[in-house]
């Protein structure tokens, strides 16, 4: 494709008119590398420690989800969407279920709605905890990883109790949820919130306000708000750039409009608005907000049968829909086309991490190899979702 170069800041013909310049060092970071969070390959051209260009190559985890979906019945797709963003399965299946329900015009039972909110917010906390841990690893601190996993373990235990799964749950079904909450489960959720909220201070003491951590992340990988919007970033990555945009508030779905919570945005407390530290801190603050939502949901949940509205035969009328929800990584959109048949004609997934990763070449240039790791970590990518 011999076309003109339309946006040179993301392409990599860097010309430095320097007679002393020697060869650049071409380095393959990944697909097996400790901090590419899976099987991402980033082709680096470096000048010593300085990155001249970083080109992500994706697709190593491509499992042809979209092709599979065309051959399956509507409910059969649910376990597959679980496997996209495997750190936030609940949020993924919530988006799919809501999209299909909207096409069918299905009203979901109140109790099931509350249960959905509780599990997806719990999953948001779990996902952000993994982020906290792996981000610590990326900048060289090992201990936060186990701190994060300690709390995540309790969430996973709760999920195991309600759905039977510990990573992939297949819990949120079209029309409701797979199981009602077992006795005493909601009290345990409340207990978890009591246990969890004080732990935030521990993370902040250990990592967030550590001088070295701030040095490593503040002013590193600054993404200005307009660039972030243009690249289609979403979720904490977008909010880190100071854009007050959360689908739970701005385009409410499910019953999020019933809860009182704040949208956390990056304020540039330690450096510039939109740096890696801001993106990190937005996620830490979001965990507190999620805990707030969970508490409210547990208090308000009505009695009833959560499985009441699950249809036996899913028949989706012909039509199409684009439905978006806020997962821990950002805007997860399903573009679903139906011809009224047994299976979808097309399920296109707009994966938040896919868009978030696409900004890497634009922010990586001129940083150091160590910064690149910090930036990549702050985008919080999950390759399962990018490659689908």
């Amino acid at each position, binding site marked *: 494709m011999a076309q003109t170069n339309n946006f040179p800041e993301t392409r990599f013909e860097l010309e430095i008119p320097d007679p002393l310049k020697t060869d650049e*060092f071409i*380095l393959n970071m990944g697909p097996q*590398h*400790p*901090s590419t969070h899976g099987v991402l390959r980033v082709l680096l051209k470096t000048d010593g*420690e300085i990155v001249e260009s970083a080109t992500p190559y994706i697709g190593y985890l491509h499992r042809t989800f979209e092709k599979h979906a065309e051959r399956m019945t509507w409910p059969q797709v649910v376990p597959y969407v679980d496997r996209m963003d495997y750190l936030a399965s609940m949020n993924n299946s919530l988006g799919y279920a809501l999209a299909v329900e909207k096409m069918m015009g299905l009203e979901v039972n109140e109790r099931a709605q509350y249960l959905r909110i509780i599990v997806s917010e719990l999953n948001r906390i779990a996902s952000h905890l993994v982020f906290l841990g792996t981000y*610590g*690893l*990326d*900048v*060289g*601190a*090992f*201990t936060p990883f*186990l*701190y994060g996993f*300690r709390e995540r373990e309790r969430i996973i235990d709760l999920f195991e109790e309600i759905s039977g799964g510990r990573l992939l749950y297949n819990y949120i079904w079209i029309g409701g949820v797979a199981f009602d909450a077992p006795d005493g489960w909601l009290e345990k959720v409340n207990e978890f919130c009591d246990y969890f909220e004080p732990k935030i201070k521990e993370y902040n003491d*250990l*990592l967030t306000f*550590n001088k*070295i*951590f701030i*040095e*490593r992340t503040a002013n590193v990988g600054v993404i200005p708000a307009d660039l972030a919007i243009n690249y289609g970033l979403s979720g904490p990555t977008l909010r880190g750039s100071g854009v007050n945009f959360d689908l739970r508030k701005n385009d409410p779905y499910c019953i999020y409009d019933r809860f009182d919570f704040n949208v956390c945005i990056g304020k540039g407390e330690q450096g510039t608005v939109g740096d890696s530290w801001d993106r990190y801190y937005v996620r830490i603050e979001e965990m507190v907000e999620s805990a707030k939502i969970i508490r409210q949901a547990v208090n308000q949940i009505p009695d009833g049968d959560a499985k009441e509205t699950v249809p036996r035969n899913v028949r989706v009328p012909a039509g199409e829909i684009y439905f978006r929800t806020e997962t821990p990584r950002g805007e997860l959109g399903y573009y679903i086309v139906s011809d009224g048949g047994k299976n979808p004609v097309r399920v296109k997934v707009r994966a938040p991490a896919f868009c978030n990763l696409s900004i890497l070449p634009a922010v990586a240039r001129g940083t*150091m*190899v*160590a*910064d690149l*790791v910090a930036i990549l970590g702050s985008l919080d990518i999950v390759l399962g979702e990018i490659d689908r």
Partner: protein
Amino acid sequence: MEPILKLFTDLLPGLSQLPYWLLATLAALIAALVLFGFIAVFALFAIWLERKISAHMQDRLGPMEVGGWHGWAQTIADTLKLLMKEDIIPEKADRILFKLAPMIVFSVSIASFVVLPWSRDFIPADLNVGLLYILSISSLAVIGILMGGWASNNKWSLYGAMRSVAQIVSYEIPISLSLITVILITGTLSMQGIVQSQQGNFLSWNIFHYFPFMFVAFVIYFIASLAEVNRTPFDLPEAESELVAGFHTEYSGMRFAFFFLAEYANMFIVSAIAATAFLGGWLPPFSFLDFIPGPFWFFGKALFLVFVQMWLRWTLPRLRVDQLMYTSWKVLTPFSFVLILIVSFWQLLTL
């Protein structure tokens, strides 16, 4: 050498019949074996300790099975595993340098043990330039690391090696400068002499000399020594999240174990130097504790500093390369120069 020879002839009077050269060789060999044994055992112990410390800091237990009591035999089992692993040399590697690198790194660590004073009488060789000897011999390790990184023919290894050279060369300066303040006070380069000049209770240790200036010197030395032995927050040459495993990416089996052993031996050496130069070496903190033998104090002080190193490792994130250089050249080095000036003037004034 002389004290050891004397020890030998005292233990076995028959040995004095032997010609001097044979006796000297024998004594040297045995001392070397003892040292090697000590390093190996200490490294095994330190690795186990590090695992346990990190585990307890991270709300878990660490090794609990092998050997029964708190998994004490875990590292022994691991070493056996490493010993029995296939010896892999990458096809495109420079074979000679690749094999030589771990040997150089390890022998440098052993060589540094020669001048460590364990007690009033026990020091393998009481060189009159002991401190200088240690400073110069420990710089040799960087050659081994560079060799290993270069010979592996791996880009990550090369990165690690380059970083390591830049780092160790830079941090040698604040280390030497902060030790010069000690030399100014004690007026000797001999390790034994440095310890003996700190006689008395703990207030006469160098660290409390000219308070707080020598304390600052100690802190500078300690920070720089972390960089010297590639420990967090200065573990850039290994930096597993950036460089996979840095200069030893391609090493496996026993060759890797040698790098590993050397790392733990080096941790002990820099701590032992700190204990000697600043914390009174084998001297007890109070003179009435004299009945406890010197090695206990020496080892205890060094081990405490090793523990602090581990503590830091499991707490702090890693610095970036430019920040590392900044810390050395713009913070530690100028501060140690200022300290040298202050200490010299103080010395002059109190003459």
